């Protein structure tokens, strides 16, 4: 009987990079509290976008821009 050659186990593909994060996620990534993230938004340092139901999302590009300039 012929044996079926085993295929090598494929490593898990890297999940696609997120485009935007919730306020909680942004706060965790920056290591600050929620108020600090909302203050950055209120002062125009972070420009959020709105999801369909109106909640704020922080684009990844905005976080990177903030970290590059601050």
């Amino acid at each position: 009987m012929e044996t079926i050659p085993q295929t090598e186990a494929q490593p898990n593909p890297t999940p696609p990079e997120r485009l935007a994060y919730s306020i909680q996620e942004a706060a965790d990534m920056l290591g600050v509290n929620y108020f600090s993230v909302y203050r950055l938004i209120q002062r125009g340092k972070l420009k959020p976008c709105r999801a369909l139901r109106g909640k704020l999302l922080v684009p990844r590009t905005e976080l990177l821009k903030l970290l590059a300039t601050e």
Partner: protein
Amino acid sequence: MNNPFEHRRPTELEDKAHAEAVRHFAEHLKQFPASREAVERLERDADKIALAANRAATKPTPKENVIQADDGKQWHKSVDLMEDIHFCHRPISYGAEYAVVEHFPAHGTNEILNRGWNAGEVLKAFTQGLRQTLQVWTEDMTAQVKEFLSEKFPGQDLSRIADAFIHKCTTQAVSKKHELTHDHEQNHSRGIRI
């Protein structure tokens, strides 16, 4: 916002949905009241802070309280407003200029948030900004809670729950445990230096 359950008791489903929302947004429930109270404290003490800053502007400042801000000028720290946020003055030939300056420890930079010739007005502009921040937070929290409830309980009208949650979050006092921590921080960061 009034408590939407003042006139009619919640149904079993509403009770369940409220409990789920409270569990899911526990961190908001902890952080929002603490931030709100910090803002209220600043508003309540505004006159005292402005007076302390005015007095500080007439006296020499210890060298360690002089900082350079992002405008390239030297500012004298007079009152600590919040963690890493200071009320400062800068002597000029005919009096003093005042500013709220935020320190970014990671980069060692000091950014001017508000500035002007009147200590009270500068402080007022700062606290108004904080109020607007709380408003942005409230609106976002409302949207998040509504999204959470509509995904968790599709097809159900749970608008009373969303309203009740926001009411709870925006009106409840800081929990005792959190208050103690906050007071402890205050002892370290909020002494009025004159």
